[in-house]
């Protein structure tokens, strides 16, 4: 068995040993720190945005400042948090362990990806802070962006560079899954989290280059006025939207697929059952990855695209509901007749099920042509994408972090604190964003800093917005609470055992409480599936955490 005192965290010491590491587990931790910091920044900006909207009239932000703040909020949350976070943190930490590999296929490329990501992130934030406050929204639509301040050059370069970080991460994971699996780890024994990261990798590799070239063209549009996108120069702004969404719709699957993978693993572990419909869940990830490339036009129903294309895009959008539904029903079926063990990670898994379903169904609603004409660019859309991105991807990430926390840090967190924070997050989130569905159906437009002029017709805007703002504060308290007890656990938490959840996958069964530098002393020989819980109690021992 492993020597408790020797592990990947203390194998080497000093800051430089981290900054120069090629250990996938340490790189995962570095992503965790970086994404955590950006999430804090994005969250503070969101609080500003919500506070401005809490009361009618101008309160803390002027019109221009408001636009600048929600732009940075969107850029940070999308490009620096949700897209990199799950593959970067958990993909890196967990995936090689789950398949019994010593590392990813290209460890140095992995480290280089982190540096690219950081370079992009620093360019984005510094460009916004010191060069010019871009106010185009995270979508950079032309001609706003081609006419905006020169800081657009910084932001587009940043997205380009961070994009390559994402490409290399995806590429690394695809090759790792293909070539580095331990003996006996066949494709139908891959844990579903690994399957999901694999499918995500496909999207990252196929979609991200397109945003790359779009950003290059936008950069040149701004620098040399090449006239591809800017209507004033004979260019076509709708072409920009096509390019942008050809990436950015698949990108929403870069955000959600890994979270779905986490949920599958959580459902299995905490229901103590084989995950129902394993093959369907695995392949529906791949199906979503490919279908996701065919629906980008649903963002442009009112942007002057032809009626025929709109109809086709609308129908293809509905198709995505099928693989997604397959997953949701299988998760529910996994709990059925299982012995559900309600620990913090599982609470987040249930929360995901609830919030993501709302997000997904409202997505189908805005995919309906006639409905979307009414709802486009209203708060309904804002609520929809927060239900998927935050209620789905981010809640999945938080659940996964709680689940793998003992393995990453070797410590347990306080379960009671975890439950209380989860409840706060749930209440706060719904109060913040469910109200926005009502605002949106009444026609409150997004990206406005003031709604006093609507109050005559819709006096309820005031109270709905206030409720949403109060909700965002509750949500903020819940999230800060997680940060506090996580830090506490890091220093004071009780030591974790090697497999506190009694899980079946290799990262729990074949490593010490904290894995050592090279993951496994001997390469595991895999003889069973990832969720063979009918063997669990005799083979892996009883669950130990009280």
């Amino acid at each position, binding site marked *: 068995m492993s020597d408790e005192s020797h592990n990947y965290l203390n194998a080497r010491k000093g800051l430089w040993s981290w900054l120069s590491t090629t250990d996938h587990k340490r790189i995962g931790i570095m992503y965790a720190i970086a994404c955590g910091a950006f999430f804090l920044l994005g969250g503070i900006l969101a609080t500003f945005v919500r506070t401005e909207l809490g009361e009618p009239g101008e309160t803390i932000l002027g019109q221009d400042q408001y636009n600048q703040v929600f732009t940075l909020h969107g850029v940070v949350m999308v490009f620096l948090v949700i897209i990199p976070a799950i593959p970067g943190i958990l993909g890196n930490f967990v995936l090689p362990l789950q398949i019994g*590999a*010593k*590392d990813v*296929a*290209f*460890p140095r*490329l992995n480290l280089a990806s982190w540096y690219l990501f950081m370079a992009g992130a620093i360019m984005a934030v510094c460009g916004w802070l010191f060069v010019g406050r871009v106010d185009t929204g995270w979508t950079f639509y032309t001609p706003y962006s081609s006419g905006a301040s020169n800081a657009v050059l910084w932001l587009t370069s940043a997205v380009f560079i961070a994009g390559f970080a994402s*490409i290399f991460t995806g*590429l*690394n994971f*695809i*090759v790792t899954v*293909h*070539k*580095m699996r331990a003996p006996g780890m066949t494709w139908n024994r891959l844990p579903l989290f690994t399957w999901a990261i694999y499918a995500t990798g496909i999207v990252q*590799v*196929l979609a*991200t*280059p*397109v945003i*790359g*070239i*779009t950003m*290059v*063209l936008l950069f*040149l*549009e701004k620098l*040399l*006025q*090449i*006239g*591809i996108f800017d209507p004033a*120069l*004979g*260019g*076509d702004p709708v*072409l920009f939207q096509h*390019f942008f969404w050809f990436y950015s719709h698949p990108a929403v699957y870069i955000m959600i697929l890994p979270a779905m993978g986490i949920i599958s693993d959580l459902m299995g572990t905490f229901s103590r059952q084989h995950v129902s419909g394993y093959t369907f869940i695995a392949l529906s990830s791949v199906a979503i990855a490919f279908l996701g490339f065919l629906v980008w036009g649903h963002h442009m129903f009112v942007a002057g695209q032809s009626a025929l294309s709109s109809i086709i895009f609308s129908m293809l959008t509905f198709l995505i509901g099928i693989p997604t539904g397959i997953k949701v029903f299988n998760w529910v079926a996994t709990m059925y007749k299982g012995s559900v063990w309600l620990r913090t990670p599982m609470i987040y898994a249930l929360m995901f099920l609830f919030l993501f379903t709302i997000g997904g169904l409202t997505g189908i609603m805005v995919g309906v042509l006639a409905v979307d004409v009414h709802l486009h660019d209203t708060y309904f859309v804002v609520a929809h994408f927060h239900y998927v991105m935050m209620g789905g991807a981010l809640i999945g990430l938080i659940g996964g972090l709680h689940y793998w926390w003992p393995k990453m840090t070797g410590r347990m967190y306080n379960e009671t604190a975890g439950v209380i924070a989860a409840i706060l997050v749930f209440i706060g989130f719904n109060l913040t964003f469910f109200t926005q569905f009502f605002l949106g159906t009444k026609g409150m437009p997004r990206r406005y800093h003031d709604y006093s002029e609507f109050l005559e017709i819709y006096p309820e805007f005031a109270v709905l917005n206030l409720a949403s703002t109060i909700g965002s504060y509750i949500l903020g308290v819940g999230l800060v609470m997680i940060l506090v007890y996580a830090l506490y656990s890091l220093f004071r938490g009780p030591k974790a055992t090697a497999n506190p959840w009694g899980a079946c996958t290799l990262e729990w069964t074949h490593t010490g409480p904290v894995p050592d530098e*090279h993951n496994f002393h001997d*390469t595991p020989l895999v003889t069973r599936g990832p969720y063979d819980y009918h063997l669990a109690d005799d083979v892996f021992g009883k669950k130990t955490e009280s």
Partner: protein
Amino acid sequence: MSSADTTLKHYFVSHEQQFDAAKLGMWLFLVTEILLFAGMFVAYAVYRSWHPEVFLQASELLDWRLGALNTVVLLASSFTVALSIHFVQKGENDKVVVLLIMTLVCAAIFMVVKYFEYSGKFSHGVFPGAGFEPHGIVDGKDYSKYDIPFAPQFFSIYFVMTGIHGVHVLVGMGLFGWLTTRVARGHFSPQYYTPVELTGLYWHLVDIIWIFLFPLLYLI
């Protein structure tokens, strides 16, 4: 862990596994390159289908003889690089060095020709984007006659596509230079020659993209 074999990384089980992984990684990278260029090909297709006459007329200003010369040069370099892989597999490293240098020279010729094409255009006001102001007479063609709507788009696309392609050629030159020194220092053997193989794959892609650029921009 045996220390004798320094080319096998500790996280791989065998040379075959390591080589396969590297090759799959390179193929995936080439897919991303194709998609990167695909964006520009789409832009080309869109503008061409909207303004076919303008594209036809504007492309007259590009000298197809220089384009054809560059095509031949690149094809030759693809051949030499393929041969270099063949010989590195057989362990005949002095031939590999010569072939890699020949490839490097071909790439350099390509860039020199491009340099003359670009500077010829710039000196007559043919710039990408807002600076577009063609003037002067070359080869009996009066450039000022080409100052028509949407001709700037053609040249923007021309400069962006060939420019980004040119950057890839420069990267390739850097890689060949680096490879040459490594071969000369005896880093490669029939057991381990992954970097040569991967650079070769990359170079074929750079070549293929040009094979598409040349007719689309110069000929039709």
